[in-house]
């Protein structure tokens, strides 16, 4: 259990750092989506299913979609 959470936190950290350094904004959005998804799994493992549900549906689904639509309307690459 503790190793699973530790592994998930490490993947989450890696995804967060990747989202920061990606020049391709689409990749950055997908990396932040992974952060939200793993956060929701960790919330579930820590016995907070209410928060896990909100994080999965808003953070991983809706926020990612909204950011991708915004990228489509502006530009894909950071200068």
């Amino acid at each position: 259990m503790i190793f699973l959470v530790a592994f998930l936190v490490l993947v989450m950290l890696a995804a967060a750092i990747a989202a920061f350094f990606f020049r391709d904004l689409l990749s950055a959005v997908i990396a932040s989506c992974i952060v939200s998804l793993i956060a929701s799994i960790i919330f579930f493992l820590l016995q907070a299913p209410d928060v896990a549900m909100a994080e999965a549906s808003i953070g991983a689904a809706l926020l990612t979609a909204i950011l991708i639509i915004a990228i489509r309307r502006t530009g894909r690459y950071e200068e």
Partner: protein
Amino acid sequence: MRVLLSLAVVAVLAAGIVTVLRDVPFGGNSSRLGSHFVENGREDTGAANIVTSVVLGYRGFDTLGEVTVLFVAAVGLGALLVAGEKNAPRKLEKASMVLTTGSRFLFPLILLFGAYIFIHGHLTPGGGFQGGAIIASGYLLVYLGSRDRRLGKNWAASIETGGGLTFVLLGLAGLTAAGHWFLSNFLPLGVPGQLLSAGIIPIIYVAIGLKVGVELTGVIDSLMGGTE
């Protein structure tokens, strides 16, 4: 010089924070409120889900504020995007057959799941906000699958208004009942764990669920192109 000045300010701030927070026992049980909610939430509010008993039972007024914040954010985004949407709607390429068929197959299931989450908000994990967000993600799938579909503005506006009005009117109705106050639970609590229990909580959660679902769908709608 400026760097030194900034460092000095930061050092003073850090010293202040350290002195204030040094004696705070983080993680300790400094307040008896939490254990009170856990022990008495079921009897006080009739909701089997403790989180719901706090969100709508003990802290219903905060939730009203939260719903208002979401409403203002959605209205602001809609106004901002409609104001910039003067030029003709852009041409959208057709979605692939897999996406279209899949969205038609999955949409009713997602809608049902979202409705289940907010109708059972007082019994199982989840509630109006989670159910509404799930419904909005189902509508997102429809927007991706069949590009020409749009949200009916009149339906959306009336559901949104109805949800908000239900919340406020139920709260005001608590004022008229004897021995109750704004947003207090004046309906019979029933047996915790049954679908028809917890008084006004399931009604408010259904209202919030529909309202949040419509609002988040409206945000997606105005982002995906807005004008019909």
